[in-house]
């Protein structure tokens, strides 16, 4: 790949009349920033990221202070204390929607980050050392691949449903996070392993080995950078998948659970009331969920095209 072009000392490789060579990354960046859909998707994703990080910017109401006598107020827009109305228990819908962004996004980020760590570790071990290590890791990949992601989550979370992990957002997020990580590393690991296998016999890797570079250095400096591009393209799509998985698990009562707040919980509570004349209980959370997922899917699609060396 072009990152490894050897510059001649004293001469800028980009200087001169020949075609300018850029790295895969800067090519991708140039292609992406010209696309309107990518820019919109990035803005939307950033908007919800800010919402998750500092919900107070968007609402001053505490989502957990609910007054049952204020139950099911219709949206008041700018004329009252509850712009989007209140739910069954009298909680402010706007505040619930805004504060619901954090658990959904945080869960997705934790799961993806942990899966990536595992994938880079196991994928490079399996691809580089082959033999017994690879046999064991590949078997494990196959076993976890055989149980569909969502089914596994349903099974394990309902098995461990009554085990107490404590209170607070982090403790509530722990069981779904563990399960989603357990079955989320598989896809990434396959990609990492495949690109390690592809790269490790290339000349420049051989050269590094011959010069006496240690295994760790060869893996981290020379092999893994090649795996980053294909894996990066998967990340946004994966985040979108986790956000929607959270909604399913919350709907079944085995994901993030009340009294914590998440979009999934708001959707599962609001669904029954939609046709009963209270669409404002379902629509805000549902819209946020859909828009976020759409933004990440658009980003993932664009990244996949931009980072595909074949399409350069």
């Amino acid at each position, binding site marked *: 790949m072009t990152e490894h072009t050897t510059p001649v000392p004293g001469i800028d490789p980009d200087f001169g009349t020949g075609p300018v060579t850029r790295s895969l990354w800067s090519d991708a960046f140039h292609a992406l920033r010209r696309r309107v859909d990518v820019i919109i998707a990035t803005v939307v994703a950033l908007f919800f990221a800010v919402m998750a990080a500092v919900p107070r910017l968007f609402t001053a109401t505490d989502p957990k202070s609910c007054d049952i006598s204020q139950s099911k107020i219709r949206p008041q827009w700018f004329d009252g204390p509850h712009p989007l109305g209140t739910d069954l228990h009298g909680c402010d819908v706007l505040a619930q929607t805004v504060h619901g962004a954090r658990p959904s996004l945080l869960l997705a980020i934790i799961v993806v980050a942990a899966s990536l760590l595992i994938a880079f570790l196991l994928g490079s071990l399996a691809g580089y050392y082959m033999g017994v290590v690879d046999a064991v890791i590949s078997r494990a990949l196959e076993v976890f691949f055989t149980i569909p992601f969502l089914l596994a989550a349903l099974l394990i979370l309902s098995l461990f449903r009554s085990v107490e992990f404590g209170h607070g957002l982090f403790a509530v997020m722990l069981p779904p996070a563990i399960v989603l990580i357990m079955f989320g590393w598989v896809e990434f690991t396959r990609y990492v392993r495949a690109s390690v296998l592809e790269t490790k016999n290339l000349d420049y890797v051989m050269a590094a080995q011959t010069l006496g570079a240690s295994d760790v250095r060869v893996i981290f400096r020379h092999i893994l950078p090649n795996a980053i591009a294909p894996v990066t393209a998967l990340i946004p799509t994966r985040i979108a998948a986790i956000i929607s998985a959270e909604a399913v698990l919350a709907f079944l009562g085995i994901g993030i659970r009340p009294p914590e707040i998440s979009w999934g919980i708001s959707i599962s509570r609001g669904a029954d009331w939609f046709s009963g004349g209270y669409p404002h209980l379902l629509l805000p959370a549902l819209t946020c969920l859909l828009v976020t997922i759409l933004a990440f899917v*658009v980003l993932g699609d664009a990244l996949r095209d931009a980072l595909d060396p074949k399409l350069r």
Partner: protein
Amino acid sequence: MGRYIARRCVQAVFTLFLVMLLLHVLSTLAIQLNGSPALAYFGDRSPTEAQIAAVEARYNLDHPCYDQPGNPCLGPFAERLGSYATGDFGTDLRERPVTELLAQAVPNTMRLFAIVTITWLVVGMVCGSIAARYRNRAPDQTIRSFSVLIDAFPVFVMLLVYKYIIAVPVGNWMQDRFGSDSTWALLFKPSFSAENPWLTLIVPGILLGATGGAASFIRLVRASQLENYNADHVRTARAKGLGDTRVTIFHIIRNSSIPVVTAIGFVFGEALSGAVITEGLMNIRGMGGLVWTAVGDSDIPVIISSVTLIAVLFLMVNLLVDLGYAALDPRIRYD
């Protein structure tokens, strides 16, 4: 070829064994941490010691290893494998045999999958072929943004929107307009009806097919056809003076269907997960619906045996796809 098939079969059986071991270890750990699942049998009532012991004995939970956290309980695992081998998959909390429940459930799931597969093939082949034919022009751009859009709609949200926002008002209107047993009213009925399995499954099946995999199918068909558009044999066919339709159908579409066939195995897994959501939300009495209600009731025996069976199904489909790949593509020789 024979040796290849044998090796793949042995591998599949071994993977299946590991899957069952994993499920067993997980459920054992859950029992050790949670306390006896026999309590779920009694619901809200508080049973005596003797009653619990009797239920534990019936569900083979009386082995002492279940009280020792960290013990993998290999003894009961061997027993369970033995009873699986004789076709005994245990009973649910209401003492109905799981095999009987599954036997009732499988036909509905198969119907759902038939509709899903037809949706994939029709949507994928038609949209993918059009997109490849008009590469980078308006139809291609439209289809690509359309596929991103349906990719973004999770199956769960799609069905939720359909059930609560569309089906209820439309179904009611159809009932008033055409009568409650008319084809139109049944088509938009928000829940499954056992008397009219096909009609009430069509819309959920199409939705599951469209959101759970159609997008990747379109992309795959497009990519594999594009490869063929510039291939030598297509240029030869055109040079011979063959018509455009003939070239497209016999030289491009036919040659690009091999990777499409192999994708079925991959997309099938997605559809299996989707089937759990679809059947659960739409109250379809299929394998997925069984898992969904069992999760609600904490009915562990049903969940474990249905997940095991679904894993078997998935392994078999993937095995068949791999073998089919070897048989279909003359360039691949495994022995």
